[in-house]
């Protein structure tokens, strides 16, 4: 045309090309303006694509690599098993219905008939057990069994149902144990730092307690005639266990000496006293009920039950004066007076001597303050039972009641280890928590026992860097294909685990008590870990923001469930929903004699 030549250019397109996903040809045409015999990009006037058809289906031979992979097979089996569980749950409602029919048509009706199928309810709370804590504990547990770690499962990882809980308190984006456990036990979110009362409370103001008390799942279970129990490795008057039985404007009012005069004059009762007076207080609050008190109480915090007088020291008291109470009351003897057939124990020997078939009431206080970290338990003066041992003993006692039981079990010191910036103890306590959950599963029947496992809140604890598969979780980051630790831009290695804030780095070697770190000055920012052994119990990870104590975090926590009603644990919900799931599963609100 006009003496100029038209040219066509073909370009092969590979698989994955934006225009031809499954390969093809691009055909460009245009005028060779510069007459060099080559159609250049500036000379294109038109482009066309001829593509090979995209494959929309593969045959079994094409996915042989998947089909014969053991992980693929195991995953498919797990889905089939979950479907069978759902089918079984559905068929409990209507023996003739199909799963599809129930799911689409009869869900609400079916759910109503599922109410009350749980004779027993166990709530396991890992205090401060964030999702990252679960992941890291899983890996550590697996590596302790000489696995790579990541593929390991903790006991509750195998539960069929799980979801997330939003943990915020009414007045706090990042919550505390008091407000969160109150939400889980009473079904209503409340403020930070208060126990068993709603958001109309004024923190620390005794006069605002009356009229704002909320009933708890444990109290409903008591009223319904079930046996009840609380276990914690923290002080039994600490926030999480306290939220099962007490009402307080301040979580720190653990005994009389902790209360300001205004609260005493206002008639508020300290938490330890409320535990011992639980039966009388509940009967006073609701006319006409008759309860028999909490059957099993085990934990630490003996000092809040004894007078501040050395003559009341227990045999294993470490302090020169063990008790803290300044009202001259000995709550241990008061409890023994109320329950003369009951058993009070304070060490492992006493624990081991308990015959659960012949014990009606058990009160165990194993330490002046909190119980030992699991890794430090051997250092207890008189010996302490483990959380798993306490779980088994409690269930063996509680299941003597034909009406069933409610049991709250807290691993209270995962939280404390995180506050101290010590992943070793946080993860070891989480592993022991997993063992306790397994003990609960083994001691019960999933046809009549709802088990919920969750955390109250998270921590600023991270798993970071790009460590290779199977890298020691407590170690420094070693990348894929490498044998030496990765170095940061400051030329120094860094651990996989770390904290955003807190007191930061410590190298206390074999020290198994995470709280020993508090005597040392804060070391935040980077430390050269090249020659530091980071796997030891006494190693505390680096932190960024200097604070006297590492803090909670505000993100969601996981909820795991098995047993009747467990299917309601799904999706992301308010933390207070947990109470309603327990109430639904055991029909607590309707079964109690208040109606």
């Amino acid at each position, binding site marked *: 045309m006009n003496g100029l030549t038209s040219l066509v250019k073909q370009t092969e397109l590979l698989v994955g090309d934006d225009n031809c996903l499954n390969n093809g040809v691009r055909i460009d045409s245009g005028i060779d303006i510069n007459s060099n015999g080559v159609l250049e990009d500036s000379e294109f006037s038109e482009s066309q694509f001829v593509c090979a058809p995209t494959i929309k289906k593969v045959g079994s031979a094409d996915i042989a690599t998947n089909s014969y992979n053991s992980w693929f097979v195991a995953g498919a089996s797990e889905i089939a098993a979950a479907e069978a569980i759902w089918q079984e749950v559905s068929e409990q409602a209507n023996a003739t219905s199909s799963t599809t029919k129930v799911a689409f048509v009869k869900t609400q009706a079916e759910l109503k008939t599922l109410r009350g199928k749980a004779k027993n309810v166990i709530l396991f709370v890992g205090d401060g057990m964030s999702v990252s804590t679960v992941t890291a504990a899983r890996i550590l547990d697996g590596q302790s069994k000489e696995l790579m770690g990541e593929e390991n499962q903790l006991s509750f990882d195998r539960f069929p149902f799980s979801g997330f809980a939003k943990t915020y308190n009414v007045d706090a984006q990042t919550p505390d144990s008091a407000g969160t456990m109150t939400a889980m036990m009473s079904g209503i979110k409340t403020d930070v730092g208060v126990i068993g009362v709603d958001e109309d409370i004024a923190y620390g103001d005794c006069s605002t307690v009356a009229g704002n008390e909320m009933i708890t799942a444990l109290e409903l279970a008591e009223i319904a005639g079930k046996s009840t129990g609380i276990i914690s490795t923290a002080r039994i008057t600490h926030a999480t266990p306290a939220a099962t039985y007490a009402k307080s404007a301040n979580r720190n009012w653990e005994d009389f000496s902790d209360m300001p005069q205004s609260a005493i004059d206002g008639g508020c009762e300290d938490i330890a006293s409320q535990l011992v007076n639980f039966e009388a207080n509940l009967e006073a609050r609701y006319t006409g009920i008759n309860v028999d008190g909490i059957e099993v109480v085990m934990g630490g915090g003996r000092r809040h039950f004894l007078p501040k007088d050395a003559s009341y020291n227990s045999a294993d008291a*470490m302090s020169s004066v063990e008790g803290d109470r300044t009202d001259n009351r000995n709550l241990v003897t008061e409890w023994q007076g109320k329950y003369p057939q009951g058993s009070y124990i304070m060490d492992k020997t006493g624990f081991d001597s308990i015959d659960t078939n012949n014990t009606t009431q058990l009160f165990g206080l194993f330490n002046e303050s909190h119980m030992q970290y699991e890794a430090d338990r051997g250092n207890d003066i008189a010996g302490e039972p483990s959380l798993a041992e306490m779980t088994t003993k409690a269930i063996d006692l509680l299941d003597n009641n034909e009406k069933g039981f409610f049991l709250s079990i807290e691993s209270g010191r995962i939280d404390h280890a995180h506050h*101290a910036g010590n992943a070793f103890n946080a993860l070891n306590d989480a592993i022991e928590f997993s063992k306790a959950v397994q003990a609960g599963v083994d001691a019960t029947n999933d046809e009549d026992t709802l088990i919920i496992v969750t955390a109250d809140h998270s921590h600023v604890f991270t798993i970071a860097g790009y460590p290779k598969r199977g890298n020691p979780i407590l170690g420094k980051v070693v990348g894929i294909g490498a044998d030496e630790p990765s170095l940061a831009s400051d030329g120094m290695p860094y651990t996989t685990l770390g904290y955003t804030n807190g007191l930061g780095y410590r190298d206390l070697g074999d020290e198994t008590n995470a*709280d020993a770190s508090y005597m040392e000055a804060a070391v935040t920012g980077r430390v050269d870990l090249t020659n530091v052994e980071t796997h030891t119990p006494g190693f505390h990870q680096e932190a960024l923001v200097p604070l*006297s104590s*590492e803090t909670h975090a505000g993100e969601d926590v996981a909820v795991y469930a098995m047993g009747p009603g467990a299917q309601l644990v799904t999706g992301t919900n308010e933390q207070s929903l947990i109470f309603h799931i327990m109430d639904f599963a055991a029909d607590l609100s309707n079964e109690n004699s208040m109606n």
Partner: protein
Amino acid sequence: MKNFVILFCFMASQLISFKNYASEQCTKQSEQLGAIYLIETSHMNHKTKQKKGKFELWRKGHDILHINPSKQTTNKWHTLKNNSIRKVSYFDHYQKGIEFEPKALTKTKWQLKYQLVSEDQLSKMTLISTKGKHCDRIEHYKFASKEQSIELWWKPELQLAQKIIYIEKETLTVWQLNKTTFSKDDIENTFNKIEHYQMTDYADIGDNESDPFLRKMIRLGFIDHAGSVFYDAQGNQLANDHQH
């Protein structure tokens, strides 16, 4: 002559008995006392103003108090049954205290709390002179290194420093024992003053931002962690190589 020898021996034995008695009395006194120090800090170039402060050391058997009046804080150390030592920090303004986790007790650790200067430190100093007797005996020591120099007037029977002159990086700090009391009432009142404070375990403070005092603890962390028991006049700890 024989009578003279008998008399001499009798008088010598009485003198030895008296010395032992005096020594025992000093030891008894040293176990329960209050020692108030005045601290003056100044810069050797005289450009900064001289600053003054106070420090109190109180002993009652196995319990020791270090009181910093300007900061309104008291640190208490007491020994526990399992040969460990526990620190408790009290804050007068808040009428509250923080209990730390016990740690293994060592002789040096205890001496630094009990008498501010350990035997280990004394052994590194040079004895210059000794004067006085019994409870009033004073030993004068000196120590010098590249980083610091220390001059110490030491009362060995009471295990108490009479005066300390400490120089580091051109900063001069002088501790002067201003008053010593052995009054049981004074000692009891000082220890009893803090007994009613509301206590919190350190392990619990991280949970408790709703409490204004504990919130300050978490954020400002005004618990001192370092090992030094030497303070300047503002109550700031002086750096040395002695740790808990």
